[in-house]
């Protein structure tokens, strides 16, 4: 008898522990806040504005998830992470999800035990040099001093690129984008290399952006996307389908401006399922029917988010390129809402 009581207690404790590990959604809802890991500051992707409110392309994903799960896009605690600290922060549970220009790679997915929930920006590694150096190709960089952020795919790609091209370089490892920018501008390195989007964003914040050029070579594939821990598939599903909802909304022409009108007037069944007026998709996720509607209203659909934060009308001025909808020749392709 005594033994079975003891065993029972262990089982309950074990179950409770198992549930704590699995129930990120419940944790977030109980806390009333989503802990979202972002950069330490990269204008356009994630940076606090003049009022201290975080905004940016990656921030918008966090806000979308918060809107879907908590009903409030502002209920997010942004946790700045560096290239080095981000994975520890996620693995230890300090953050519920990471949206920080993070490249989806095999070893991060499989070995570091993370689950990438999609791609919100198809990118590649580029090089930026001062115009006055007169360099026009990355292959001319023999002997150059290169600033890189440590803990990134960047430093690995760089080693491979210079090795395979048989040229030498001097790496200067740096923790954050801000420090890299300072060293680059002071001429302590000739070249700054990171994701091309990050270079564009960094250059846009320079006093004289036109004095710097991005070299034509893109030396790697960097599919950037949000990620969560292994082992909580329900939470992974929520983050994945929130991102997909933003992408699908653009594809179907649902914007934050017309969403109210479309919701009532549409007879497209996929839009109806997306916005919760038909079917039980929200329930399947463990959320209410209007989760996706709130996510879209938080900052607009994918296209709106892109245009507002990093698009061609912003100082960063990135073209959609690979990040256009598949219907426009890009790679963005959300699985169907069905």
């Amino acid at each position, binding site marked *: 008898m005594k033994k079975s009581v003891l065993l029972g207690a262990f089982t309950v404790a074990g179950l409770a522990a198992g549930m704590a590990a699995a129930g990120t959604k419940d944790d977030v809802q109980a806390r009333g806040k989503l802990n979202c890991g972002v950069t330490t500051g990269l204008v356009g992707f994630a940076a606090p504005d003049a009022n201290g409110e975080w905004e940016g392309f990656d921030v918008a994903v966090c806000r979308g998830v918060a809107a879907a799960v908590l009903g409030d896009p502002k209920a997010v605690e942004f946790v700045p992470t560096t*290239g*080095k600290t981000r*994975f*520890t922060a996620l*693995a230890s549970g300090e953050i519920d999800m990471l949206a920080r220009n993070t490249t989806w790679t095999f*070893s991060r997915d499989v*070995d*570091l*035990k993370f689950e990438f929930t999609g791609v919100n920006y198809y990118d590649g590694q580029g090089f930026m040099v001062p115009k006055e*150096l007169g360099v026009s190709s990355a292959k001319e*960089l*023999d*002997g*150059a*001093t290169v600033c890189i952020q*440590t*803990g990134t795919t960047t*430093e*690995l790609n*760089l*080693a*491979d690129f*210079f*090795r395979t091209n048989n040229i030498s*370089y*001097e*790496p*200067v*490892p*740096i*923790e954050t984008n801000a420090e890299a920018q*300072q*060293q680059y501008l*002071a*001429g*302590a*390195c*000739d070249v700054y290399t990171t994701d091309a989007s990050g270079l564009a964003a960094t250059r846009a914040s320079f006093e004289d952006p036109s004095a710097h050029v991005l070299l034509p070579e893109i030396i790697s594939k960097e599919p950037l996307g949000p990620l969560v821990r*292994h082992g909580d598939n329900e939470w992974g599903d929520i983050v994945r389908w929130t991102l997909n909802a933003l992408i699908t909304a653009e594809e179907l022409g649902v914007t934050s401006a017309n969403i109210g009108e479309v919701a009532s007037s549409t007879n497209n069944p996929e839009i109806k399922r997306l916005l919760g007026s038909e079917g039980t998709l929200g329930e399947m996720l463990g959320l209410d029917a209007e989760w996706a509607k709130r996510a879209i209203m938080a900052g607009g659909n994918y296209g709106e988010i892109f245009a507002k934060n990093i698009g061609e009308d912003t100082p960063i001025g990135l073209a959609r390129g690979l990040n256009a909808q598949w219907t426009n020749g890009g790679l963005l392709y959300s699985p169907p809402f069905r």
Partner: protein
Amino acid sequence: MSSITDPGKQQFRLSMLIYDTRYRSGTIQVIAMIGFMLLAAWLISNTAQNLAALGKPIDFGFFSEPASYDINQRLLDYTSRDSHLRAALVGLLNTLVVAVLGCITATILGVIIGVLRLSHNWLIARLMTIYVEMFRNVPVLLWIVFIMAILIETLPAPRAFKGVETGALVLTNRGFYIPEALFSRSLGDIHLLGESSLRFDVSLDFIAIIVVLVASLYASHVIKTRADRIQAATGDRPTTWYLRLGVVVVPMVLLLVALGFHLGMPELKGFNFKGGTHLRNSLIALWLALSLYTAAFIAEIVRAGIMAISHGQTEAAAALGLRPNRIMSLVVLPQALRVIIPPLISNYLNLTKNSSLAIAVGYMDITGTLGGITMNQTGRELECILLLMLVYLTISLSISAVMNWYNESVKLKER
């Protein structure tokens, strides 16, 4: 009838473990030990279990995988195809370099400042006080970052030297370039340990120089002992300085000429200076900051050591006719060393451990390689941190061992 009987041999009872003062402290220690071991066992099993649940059991296999990243300052040959183990080794050497350079500079500066702080010159003594208070009351991390920022922001970039005639020493914001020693008739290197991760080269030129140097210093020592002997016997000391100098300088010059010694000057080629030795800005910032910071502490230790020697000693020495310089070097310092060395050891240890702040300026020490990029790219946090702790422990214990041995040798010999 009264008789004294021996108390009967008492039967041992379990309660005596607690109530008998002969056993009590033993009992408490055993219980505490068991408790401590249980706690340790629980921590270890908990960690192992959690890692297993995460699917990351402890595994050092990653060590032999290619590191895939480059390191700028390397004392061993290293490419990104080398293993993580070798990357860690390169980092370890970088740690040792900055620790050794730092300890030497800090000691020299510290002794000078400590002695000057006791100077009768009001201005000098005050300036030294300001130095000490300024450096030891600001965290060393800030000094490191501050010096780095000064180097980067105030010195010109290499490209500013285009078309400029540069001398032997070039100061740029990427670091300092100094001439390097080159040998046109070099003896070559010997390669040890084949192709393994631990392989290293030893320069035969370097060995030859060391051998000649040691031999001539020994010869110079023999001459000195002979002079001492003659002085003890006759009271006259033969003049030996030219002999001693010659015996050191002449063989070295001959060797250097034989090896075809010349200096390689730094020259601007392309993006950077080529030739010469490159002292990177990260090394300089770290070295300087650690030295200046630790020197402030050492100065205080030296001052305390000197003040611990009673003034009577100085006066007695003066009464014997010794000049102040000799009083310091023959009477005060040898005694002060006994007081100085133990705290000096802990300052050397501090400096070495503080060198792990290197990553703040991107200096690739072992915390930057093994505890930084390797850990980050492989995700093997526990393994890397454990090893890192082991490495620092080993370095620290070695420093302690050497310094304790030295302390033993300068200790007051009691006869």
